[in-house]
């Protein structure tokens, strides 16, 4: 059975491998360019010396912005695997009537489903795992470049987090499971693919919105107008607010009369801060929670996948009749 599954999946797997090779090639080329820029612009040396590298970092970001963002598209990979591999898996057989051929051979439909599911799932997970590895390697130079206070490339930032560790695998399994189940339920390829999109995306976005609450966030309070002591650590900053003397969040800093007469700006700012008791408060998830968050998020998606796959198997074996 597995040999038939392999033969049927071969064109799909081969074309995906080619696509994967293209992505890897692109990653290698752009990674070289980024490493060269880090070295030649002196940013690398600057970071090593621990100085203020904001300008250099900004220049780096500006130059590679498009490339960095283009890799954001890979976020779609799990979804595409679900749509193009999962969706047609059962649906195409039902559509072309080949289920009547293959389910009436000696092994029956249970074995058929197990073989086809197993093979594609292994393939999809392998593709995602390779992609994740490549992305992690690709991100290495970027990770050193933390634009002040922004932590754009911190590991908990969703632009990074979603490509790292084990969550991409969990996304893939989930998208694939949804595709298979939709195919069994709708019995048609195109509706199954559309349904996969329509189910996967809201769930993915929903969990993304939940992520900042996986664990209660921490807060860091520090003097107004200064840099956070946690700057550059790669935390995920959820909020950056100003509080006044009473400790309530304010978005308006009023200048008291006593400070208005001060001649120089630094003195005036010090006065305002002093008089109003203004402080910065950052709400953040510390970067050290990366793996905890990975486990929580993967757990959510794997749990959902198990439920959806169970539905798909039950539907094919018991209900499709």
């Amino acid at each position, binding site marked *: 059975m597995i040999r038939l599954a392999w033969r049927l999946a071969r064109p799909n797997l081969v074309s995906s491998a080619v696509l994967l090779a293209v992505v890897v090639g692109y990653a290698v080329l752009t990674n070289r360019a980024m490493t060269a820029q880090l070295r030649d612009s002196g940013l690398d040396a600057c970071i090593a010396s621990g100085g203020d590298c904001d300008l250099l970092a900004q220049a780096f970001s500006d130059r590679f912005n498009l490339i960095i963002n283009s890799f954001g598209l890979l976020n779609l990979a799990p979804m595409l695997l679900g749509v193009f591999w999962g969706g047609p898996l059962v649906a195409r057989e039902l559509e072309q009537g080949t289920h009547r*051929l293959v389910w009436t*051979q000696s092994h029956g439909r249970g074995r058929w489903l197990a073989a086809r599911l197993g093979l594609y799932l292994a393939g999809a997970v392998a593709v995602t795992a390779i992609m994740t590895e490549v992305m992690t390697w690709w991100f290495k130079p970027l990770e050193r470049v933390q634009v002040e206070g922004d932590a754009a490339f911190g590991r908990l930032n969703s632009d990074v987090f979603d490509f790292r560790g084990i969550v991409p695998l969990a996304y893939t399994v989930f998208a694939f499971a949804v595709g298979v189940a939709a195919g069994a339920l709708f019995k048609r390829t195109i509706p199954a693919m559309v349904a996969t999109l329509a189910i996967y995306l809201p769930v993915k976005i929903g969990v993304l919105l939940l992520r900042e609450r996986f664990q209660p966030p921490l807060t860091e309070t520090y003097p107004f107008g200064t840099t956070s002591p946690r700057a550059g650590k790669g935390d995920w900053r959820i909020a950056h607010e100003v509080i006044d003397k009473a400790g309530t969040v304010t978005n308006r800093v009023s200048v008291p009369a006593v400070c208005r007469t001060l001649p120089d700006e630094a003195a005036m700012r010090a006065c305002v801060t002093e008089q109003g008791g203004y402080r910065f408060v950052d709400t953040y998830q510390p970067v050290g929670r990366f793996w905890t968050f990975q486990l929580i998020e993967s757990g959510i998606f794997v749990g959902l996948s198990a439920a959806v796959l169970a539905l798909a198997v039950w539907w094919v074996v018991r209900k499709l009749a």
Partner: protein
Amino acid sequence: MTPVLEAEGLGRRYGRQWALRDCTLALPGGQVIGLVGPNGAGKTTLLSLAVGLLRPTEGEVRVLGRRPRSPGTVAEVGFVAQDKPLYRNLTVAETLRMGAWLNPGWDAPGARDRITRIGLPMDQKVGKLSGGQRSQLALTVALSKRPKLLLLDEPVADLDPIARRDFLRTLMSEVAESGVTVVLSSHLLADVEKTCEFLVLLATSHVQLADDTETLLSQHRMVTGPRADAQSLFSAHTVVQADYAERQATLLVRGRAPINDPMWTVRPVSLEELALAYMSTSLPQEVAA
């Protein structure tokens, strides 16, 4: 001897529409059984139930004495669906390899012989085969599994006369060789008449007749006589169908009770007349024996 296919009050409903109902049957093994009926009579439904692709809404079906989906049964029943599904991207050779992968009892030399005899090129993609070639290949896959029971749903419906003849010829020689029991459905009586020794007639989702053809023919007679006297026949005989011309009545009568009235001409019935009569009978209770 256990019947190869046994149904007990078998019924299947799609939504509110019954495709098959009250089907009680026992088909004996070792012969070619024709399943005849107009389109939509429930032939495909009955075969799909027998091969486990469908589940009954009510009643029960047993194949080779077991449930259709039990593991042993699936291996012993060959099935070719009406549209002869095969993977279009596979070549003929790969299709045979698929058969070997999926069936432990696969007869590889036999399969190759059959393909050679039919004259199919091994490296041709299935999608490029003609309808007749595809049917032959599908039949080869089903036969090479070495089934005890072979179910064919409208095997020749979409074939031209030559392909049809070739297909039935292959089938008959296989039956003679291996003694496999074949149930083939058709809405065309001619195919069945030539090949089948046992006839099951389905119409309006119900089984109308099920017996071997000899018995069926000997149980029925065509009676022609004056229309005015037709009523008298109804009281003494089971009239399956009556056809009235202006003065004349032609009646299909079931049973052997003698008809002595010289006004009536009695002649044997042909299988075609018989089948047509039962198919066009709209009310099944009229023919309950």
